[in-house]
């Protein structure tokens, strides 16, 4: 038994039972399918992360975001600027203790290059109720091209623990027709 040395001294010469062999083949094949599924999705699927990212100083990122806000702010809401950048443009979303800054307004079915970076600790970009979740680091500018395909009002929650105000860190994204 498994608690004693194998009774057959030359255990590695023992034949393998057919049922176990079949299972190994099935499981191995399934592993290959799952492996190639990820590669396949990079070609055929519409939801993939780009590998585009840059190192950036928090102040530099904040300046870019401020420039965008100055140029495209359309109104204010609860103290947050609401920004409506043109389709296809670079859009900056600042994560900081404990805000997503500013509020963004997108047009449905248009693409935007969304830049995410943190001013301080790590944060978690959690777009709800779509449920897209990305990690946001200080010092890294992550670029994701998004194409909102349903109009509505979305919440941006923080799902990386960032201290005592973590649960109040809520931002907003509007998608309009």
């Amino acid at each position, binding site marked *: 038994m498994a608690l004693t040395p*194998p009774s057959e001294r030359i255990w590695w010469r023992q034949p*393998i039972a057919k*049922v*176990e062999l079949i299972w190994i083949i099935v499981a191995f094949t399934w*592993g290959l399918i799952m492996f190639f599924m990820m590669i396949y999705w990079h070609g055929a699927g519409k939801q993939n992360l780009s590998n585009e990212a840059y190192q950036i100083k928090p102040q530099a990122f904040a300046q870019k975001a401020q420039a965008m806000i100055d140029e495209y702010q359309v109104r204010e809401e609860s103290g947050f600027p609401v920004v409506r950048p043109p389709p296809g443009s670079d859009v900056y979303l600042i994560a900081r203790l404990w805000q997503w800054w500013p509020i963004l307004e997108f047009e449905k079915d248009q693409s935007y290059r969304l830049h995410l970076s943190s001013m301080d600790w790590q944060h978690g970009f*959690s777009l709800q109720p779509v449920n897209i979740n*990305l990690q946001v680091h200080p*010092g*890294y500018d992550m670029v994701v091209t998004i194409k909102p395909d349903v109009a509505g009002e979305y919440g941006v929650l923080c799902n990386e*623990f960032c201290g005592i105000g973590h649960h109040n860190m809520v931002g907003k994204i509007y998608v309009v027709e």
Partner: protein
Amino acid sequence: MGKLFDYRTCPTTGLRVDRAAEKLIKANAVVAIVFLAIGGLFGLLVALTRWPAVHFLPADWFYLALTAHGLDVLLVWIIFFEMAILYFASAILLNSRLAGPKWAWTGFGLMLVGALTTNVAVLQGGSSVMFTSYVPMMAEPHFYLGIILFAVGALIGCGVFFGTLVIAKRDKTYEGSIPLVTFGALTAAIIAVFTIASGAIILIPTLLWSVGLVSHIDPLIYKTIWWAMGHSSQQINVAAHVAVWYAIAAMTFGAKPLSEKISRMAFLMYILFLQLASAHHLLAEPGLSSEWKIFNTSYAMYLAVLGSMIHGLSVPGAIEAAQRSRGLTKGMFEWLRKAPWGNPAFAGMFTSLVFFGFIGGISGVVMGTEQINLIMHNTLYVPGHFHGTVVAGTTLAFMAITYLLVPLIFRRELMMKKLATWQPYVFGIGVAGISVFMMGAGTLGVARRHWDMTFADAVLPFDFPAAAYLMMGLNGIFACMAALGGVMFVVIIVGSVFFGKKLADDEQPTYPEVPPEAAAVSHYGSSDTLKIPGTVFLVSIFFVAFVLYYFVNWKYLSEVWPLS
């Protein structure tokens, strides 16, 4: 033979039991269970806070309790218990003396001091940084120092284990190859060395950073290396609890692996591939290429998953073969129906096997798929998954074998047998509920490590659907059930260890039943004697569930906003 070391002869197995090893097993197991009780209590407080109708703790205490919960159960309880398993699988199973008991006690002392230091740091309130302590969020220096001391102690324990293997081989205390269970423990110990080395590489600079000697720690590098420790340490658990499954199957049925070769190869795959899983935590991260993510997250084409799937057939298959050879051959499932479901060791082991596979295993592979991770990363789906692996899998398996350790190593008769019969079910079903409902809440977007899903104090409002609240309520209820199961376990074991009837050195324990030298399958590997239709059926159900669930999640992914 002269008396080389102080030992007694086990009346059940006839093996010599090194009293020094025995004392160390006892000490490690007892401390482990104390931390399980403390960490479990913190876990209950967390679950009661996340139950929206109860919302028990204030925010600062919630984050403190969550940090302590992760630390005490995920790290301290499990590693202390694994030390007990390492000493058991080496000195006891190999009929040998333990190498350097003084070293083993030094390691034990360091682990204890380390665990207490970090607990103090957390309870002082300045280190509510979660178990992962992601930089640039900073904890007090003694938070990191405690973990480092703990890891050094564990490393010494691994060294004692390796040394014991060498001594046993040199003294020829056994014939042929080491037993499969010892092989599994060896796997765990090798992975542990890798794990601890990774931990040292990242935590020592972080400690220096916290006292001001290092100016900057890159958050992405921190995460990458931290998870080479954090995830690999979970692979120590997998290797250890699979070894425990084999051990319990052997102790309660005399079950013999279907094939030594295959089972050992499956353990070897853990050593070779499991460490790549650091990538599971980096799939939604900037700055890492898709090629890197795909190769690593899949453990190089799912070879470590293959290892687990092999054990998933081999363990129940060995039990079925043993039962059938004993005459329980009617239909597909007589062997399983007539299994000793009232024996907590078997009941715990089998529920651990089923829940680990169906809940923890499948969800882990799905969540670890590069793109699917986007709809799960850092939601409650993540703790849902790992409560399925680490609690329903590892903790339940460790509880199960404790029922055998009490009579065999502690030499005490188990008390409260009726309660013990129920314990694995209460705990197991409670944990399964926790896992499933957290995963449910996660798919609805509820964040992990989050105090208030109503966002009552947030400037901008957000409302989760009612279903999410229902999930969190159910999670709370099942957490209470799991906590009850945990209390039952602690009461039974602590009661038995301190107040149970002492067994004389030559007295056979009567409970849980350990069979007479069981008539196991006589020739494994031979397809003539080996018919395990029941196991094949169960494994087929597992496989179908796996495939369906996997593709359902691709479907979910395809419905979210296009990203590129």
